[in-house]
């Protein structure tokens, strides 16, 4: 005769991914690496932004990129053409990158000690928000062609991000985009989110982006030193 038993579990559904993400984070910290997970809808300009950023940042530190797309290695080729190592992940039918994919891809990159690893997630404003990859923080990129209320329509990704980069500001004269309103909406879902306005095409605002990256490096160094005490 079988007896029905009640088993208490109390486990996070994403436990497995979170465990692998914690491993990745340990590797990244040991290599003194800043890791940014870039999220956006398709077409917000993540790759154009990255091509400019890595071309300029590679002069002063090691930089690498992991590219996530459903298909093709076009984006990795664009980054490699800028003189920076890049690994392409094709997710096939999956809509997001997960921590295991990043662990595998990281092993295929050269050592980037003391540098920066950018992860360009799959263009999707919903699913990638749920998956920790082990990154230092998430950055959401959204372009002014998408409308000011994007943070209200897709709040999870804005809530999960430390920085919102508003891109394509060079088109401001052609579009009626209210930057103040977009920032107000983003802070409704995340009162602490930092904001930088850029044009990946002209380079406007990139000095502020690099200054922000340097502040994250300083913060990570202090956290590491505090831990060592």
């Amino acid at each position, binding site marked *: 005769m*079988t*007896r*029905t*038993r*009640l*088993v*208490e*579990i*109390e*486990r*996070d*559904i*994403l*436990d*497995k*991914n979170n465990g692998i993400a914690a491993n990745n984070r340990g590797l990244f910290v040991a290599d003194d690496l800043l890791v940014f997970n870039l999220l956006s809808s398709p077409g917000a300009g993540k790759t154009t932004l990255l091509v400019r950023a890595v071309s300029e940042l590679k002069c002063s530190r090691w930089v690498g990129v992991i590219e996530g797309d459903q298909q093709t290695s076009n984006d990795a080729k664009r980054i490699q053409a800028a003189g920076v190592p890049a690994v392409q992940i094709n997710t096939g039918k*999956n*809509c*997001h990158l*997960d921590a295991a994919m990043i662990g595998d891809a990281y092993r295929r990159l050269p050592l980037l000690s003391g540098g920066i690893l950018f992860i360009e997630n799959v263009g999707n404003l*919903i*699913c990638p*928000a*749920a*998956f920790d990859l082990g990154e230092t923080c998430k950055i959401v990129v959204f372009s002014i062609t998408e409308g000011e209320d994007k*943070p*209200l329509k897709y*709040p*999870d990704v804005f*809530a999960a991000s430390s920085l919102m980069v508003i891109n394509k500001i060079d088109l401001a004269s052609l579009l009626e985009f209210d930057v103040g309103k977009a920032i107000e*909406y983003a*802070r*409704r*879902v995340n*009162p602490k989110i930092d904001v930088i306005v850029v044009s990946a095409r002209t380079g406007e605002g990139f000095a502020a982006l690099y200054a922000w990256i340097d502040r994250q490096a300083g913060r990570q160094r202090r956290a590491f030193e505090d831990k060592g005490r």
Partner: protein
Amino acid sequence: MHEMAICLGIIQIVEEKVHERSSSRVRSICLEMGALSHAAPEAIRFCFAAAATRTVAEGAALNIVELPGVAWCMSCSKSVEIARRGECCPCCGSYHLQVTAGEQMRVKELEID
């Protein structure tokens, strides 16, 4: 469709526990899902049946306990319930809210033979 990945996560946890307990049949799975989590209960119910096919979880009842979103209002210094992100404080109308609960997606318990 990250809901499919979430359902596969549920099944993985269930399989581990069933194996540990040398059980062969799962009668029910109880989940806790917060209103501010990354998946909607109806989407999880929809995907679960497909994800559970030919696993130990096939045919198990899925019970989802839905928990409210809770935030700390930095303007009126109160804990308040919110149904979704981007909502204002129901007491003072401020958007200075820090989410404190309701983001969880957990497997709470199982009923096994």
